């Protein structure tokens, strides 16, 4: 059913259709409306047998979904920014315990200074936790990726948490037409959760044991292998999703106009539609430009990226997070994927803390790169000139 809805509703509705057993969350802007919608569904008896709990903190919410998942439940939570950072100790733990929790991150910048507006510093900051991360460009994609996230996370070859990253406000609060799924379709795709290990008096096991040096490393490397398997499982599930719904979101990356492009712009999340629009106009003007959308950020699709970018001499990476003191995060990963190729990479840091990314800015950068006017090194765009006052 196609409807114009706001992002948070599209997300909450997809969570409902995925039939979780336990939802635990704590409100934070801009995630709040997602959990408010779920709370309302719960209050109206629309969540089936699911239990919805408002925790005392995000730390508590994450710990609750961890416990619920260990007990064999399908568990969901959502958060943003400070909330995600507060969850981080639990999330590393949940990943190590191989619990297939699904989270939605309504992406928001991190404090200080406090800002409620969008960038992707929050989820980028916990990219090493062993959690699958997928960034969406629209509310339709967010809606579709939630059942898929459960399916992939719960696959016995994977068993890792899955994080669907949705740009705060820009998507979560935007009105967009969304083809809302129905229960029958979701049920066809997503079977009930069948845990491989759970807390069960009839078959007692200890979960969360500590591992001395003869074991620890193997457990951590096992997570790495699971991530590698997740990469394959995701591709299979993307295909099944397409067959079922007719919506093709592509693979881990989506390359548009890349084959013959001199310049390719790499983008993630809600800037993708803007970049796409710029690229298609420039194409009409006969410019050889392309776009690479990275959907899956963990597992990082190095092979796919290398393949898509092998002919592009110049690559612009739109960075909406920093790794302060080092190369911006996506650039570092893209460069490692391109290692040994002769490409030039232009990291463009922009849009932090909700700063607008105007179309002209994207156009200008592409033009400048084509004309050789700027160097392949980190630059900040949309930044005011400033002087730090240290009294």
């Amino acid at each position, binding site marked *: 059913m196609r409807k114009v809805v706001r992002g948070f509703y599209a997300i909450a509705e997809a969570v409902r259709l995925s039939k979780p057993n336990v939802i635990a969350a704590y409100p934070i802007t801009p995630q709040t409306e997602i959990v408010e919608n779920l709370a309302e569904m719960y209050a109206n008896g629309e969540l089936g047998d699911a239990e919805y709990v408002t925790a005392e903190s995000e730390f508590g919410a994450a710990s609750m979904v961890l416990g619920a998942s260990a007990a064999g439940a399908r568990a969901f939570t959502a958060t943003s920014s400070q909330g995600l950072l507060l969850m981080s100790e639990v999330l590393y733990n949940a990943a190590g315990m191989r619990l297939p929790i699904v989270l939605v991150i309504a992406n928001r910048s991190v404090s200080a200074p406090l800002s409620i507006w969008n960038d992707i510093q929050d989820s980028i900051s916990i990219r090493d936790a062993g959690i699958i991360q997928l960034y969406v460009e629209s509310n339709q994609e967010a809606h579709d990726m939630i059942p898929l996230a459960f399916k992939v996370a719960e696959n016995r070859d994977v*068993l890792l948490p899955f994080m669907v990253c949705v740009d705060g406000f820009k998507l979560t609060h935007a009105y967009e037409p969304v083809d809302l799924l129905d229960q029958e379709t979701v049920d066809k795709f997503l079977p009930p959760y069948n845990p491989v*290990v759970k807390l069960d008096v009839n078959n007692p*096991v*200890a*979960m*969360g*044991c500590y591992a001395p040096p003869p*074991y620890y490393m193997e457990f951590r490397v*096992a997570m790495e292998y699971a991530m590698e398997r997740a990469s394959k499982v995701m591709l299979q599930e993307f295909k099944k999703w397409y067959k079922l719904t007719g919506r093709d979101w592509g693979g881990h990356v989506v390359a548009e106009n890349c084959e013959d492009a001199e310049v390719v712009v790499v983008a993630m999340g809600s800037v993708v539609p803007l970049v796409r629009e710029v690229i298609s106009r420039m194409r009409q003007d006969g410019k050889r430009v392309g776009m690479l959308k990275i959907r899956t950020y963990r597992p990082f699709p190095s092979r796919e990226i290398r393949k898509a970018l092998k002919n592009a001499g110049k690559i612009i990476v739109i960075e909406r997070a920093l790794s302060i003191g080092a190369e911006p995060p996506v650039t570092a990963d893209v460069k490692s994927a391109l290692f040994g190729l002769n490409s030039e990479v232009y990291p463009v840091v922009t849009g932090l803390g909700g700063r607008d990314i105007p179309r002209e800015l994207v156009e200008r950068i592409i033009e400048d790169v084509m004309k050789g006017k700027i160097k392949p090194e980190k630059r900040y765009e949309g930044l005011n000139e400033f002087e730090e006052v240290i009294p």
Partner: protein
Amino acid sequence: MAKMKLYIGASSPAMSSEMKTGDWGTELAYIDKEKCIACGQCITFCPEPATSMVEEGDKKYAVVDHDYCKGCWICFTVCPVDAIEMKTKEIYKVEVC
């Protein structure tokens, strides 16, 4: 070499009884079955537990499993009839000459 078996996420079935912690201490508890009144105090209090109750005909008494006795003296202190004796293990008996 055989491959290591890793239960997912460091989960593990119960298996600590393979740990014979009876070799930790320098002493072991011995219960005199004649004196024992089968009150169960040593069983309630043994932290390991290394103590258990056995029945022999109509005689009931507590015994110590030396595979797990750490020689902590707790049972000794709670036995109401002084039926428990702590004995130094042979290897810790130093001959003074």
